[in-house]
């Protein structure tokens, strides 16, 4: 056994030991309720500061057609395991109706043709996944703001909730849902997208309609939307945190960072 090898082994052992004890200490910290409450408090600060900096009409960057990603990763749910959905998918969603309800004067039921007839927008934007990757795609859809106006949003409404057809974890059974505040709901780039790169949405990307809320992360871009509800409070809905991932793993509701 040569000296350097022994030395290296010694340092490796020392390093692993130091790493293991630091890790144990960190995990103890991370399991403390008080520590995590303090750590979680930063989300409110981030949300408030971003809202302060970000004016309501400021647009997410848009791109040129040649910048569209050749392969746009489909993440989260990539399909809906439901015979009725599959039947509609095969036929082009003739009987699908998007329900717009909750705190509105005139609840709506909109077909795909109705959505296509509403004020729309086409935008080439970057989809930023919370995991760290990004893909660029072109989205065409109906603007959410005018639809909410058409339904007559009541002044008590503070959030818009999107109920989806997909179930990420079949064992847990909870269906996907997401929610956004009114500032994002009325943002000019916030659309109910029915087409991607000039084609009707495919199943992996959320057919028939998915949300695009471009100043936030990927998990806010709810797919397979079935129902939209205007609400005053998110707490009574499911886990109360305003979204599937927010309830299940603790992703931030405000996904601007």
């Amino acid at each position, binding site marked *: 056994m040569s000296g350097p090898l022994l030395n290296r082994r010694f340092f490796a052992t020392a390093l*692993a030991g130091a*790493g*293991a004890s*630091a*890790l144990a200490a*960190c*995990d103890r*910290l*991370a399991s403390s309720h008080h520590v*995590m409450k*303090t*750590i*979680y*408090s*930063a*989300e409110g*600060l*981030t949300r408030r500061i*971003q809202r302060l*900096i*970000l004016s309501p009409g*400021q*647009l*997410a*960057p848009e*791109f040129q057609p040649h*910048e569209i*990603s050749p*392969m746009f*990763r489909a993440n989260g749910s990539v399909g809906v395991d439901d015979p009725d959905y599959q039947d509609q998918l095969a036929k082009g969603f003739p009987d699908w109706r998007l329900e717009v309800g909750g705190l509105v004067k005139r609840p709506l039921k909109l077909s795909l043709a109705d959505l296509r007839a509403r004020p729309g927008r086409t935008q080439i934007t*970057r989809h*930023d*996944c*919370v*995991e*760290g*990757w*990004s*893909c*660029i795609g072109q989205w065409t859809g109906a603007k959410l703001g005018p639809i909410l106006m058409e339904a007559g949003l009541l002044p008590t409404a503070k959030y818009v909730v999107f109920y989806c057809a997909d179930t990420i974890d079949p064992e847990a059974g909870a269906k996907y849902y997401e929610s956004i505040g009114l500032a994002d709901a009325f943002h000019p780039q916030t659309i109910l997208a029915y087409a991607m790169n000039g084609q009707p949405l495919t199943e992996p990307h959320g057919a028939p309609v998915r949300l695009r809320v*471009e*100043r*936030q*992360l990927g998990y806010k871009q709810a797919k397979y939307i079935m129902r939209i509800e205007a609400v005053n409070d998110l707490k009574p809905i499911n886990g109360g945190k305003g979204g599937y*991932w927010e309830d299940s*793993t*603790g*992703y*931030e509701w405000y*996904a*601007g*960072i």
Partner: protein
Amino acid sequence: MSDIAVTPPLNPGAPVKPDPAKPALRTVVLYRTKLWVRVWHWINALSLFFLLVSGLQIFNAHPALYWGQAANFTHPILAMQGVPVGGSWRGVTTVFGHSFTTTGLFGASDYHGSIMRRGFPSWLTIPSDRDLANGRRWHFFFAWAFAINGAAYFLYILIGRHLKKDLWPTAEDIRSIPRSIIDHILFRHPHGEAAARFNVLQKLAYLVVLLGLLPLMILTGLTMSPGMNAAFPILPWIFGGRQSARTIHFICAWSLVGFFAIHIFQVFAAGVFNEMRSIITGRFAIKVPADAPPFDGEGVAR
């Protein structure tokens, strides 16, 4: 010269004996590091530690790096993957298309007794298990601590004299760069009064960190935020895209780890007790000729 009466040393445990061969020295304890620099240093050190381990947790959610706005999944700059082999995993790290087996460290490593797929090993992440949501919570909490602490520091060095007096190289410093390089190679440490000041390479290293790496960490970090991209479209333009910014963020983080390694090595090389005392209490001991006139700053800390 050496037979001149020696002033009583400050440290009574180590009296300076007159030695005809060497000039007599006395120990002077200076108040070198001001309180606000010490507070900044330790909040910064703590923040950077948690930012690193939570940052590696976040990286592990997608352990690959790209250049540009979007991810080119088939041609990553760096990727750490787990490849299935006989019921277990082999860690494979790919850098610019060259693959290396890195089982145990990158791509696949031990977690509670079995090899699991993960970018960096669990002992380098907080929390130790795969938990992107909490990794992000830790990261953004300490990002705020780091940014507020850093902003206060910058305000202070710009208003105060720390930048000009202690950190900015003088003309003489610039001329002494070649000599300083040789001194560093030969492990020749400055003595006396010069030991209390930062040498030119030290100043340059601190400036690269303070004016380069630390601001870059904040700017590339903000460039990954979709909200900040809308607020400041110049950010992704500066760094050539969100994925480039993520890659630069990663490189700067490991450059800071490199700085930390040299920093700690130098602390030990220059005298760990004296250096640690200086960054904890502010007091720093130097040896000066016994007949030297009272030193500027001498006795402040007594």
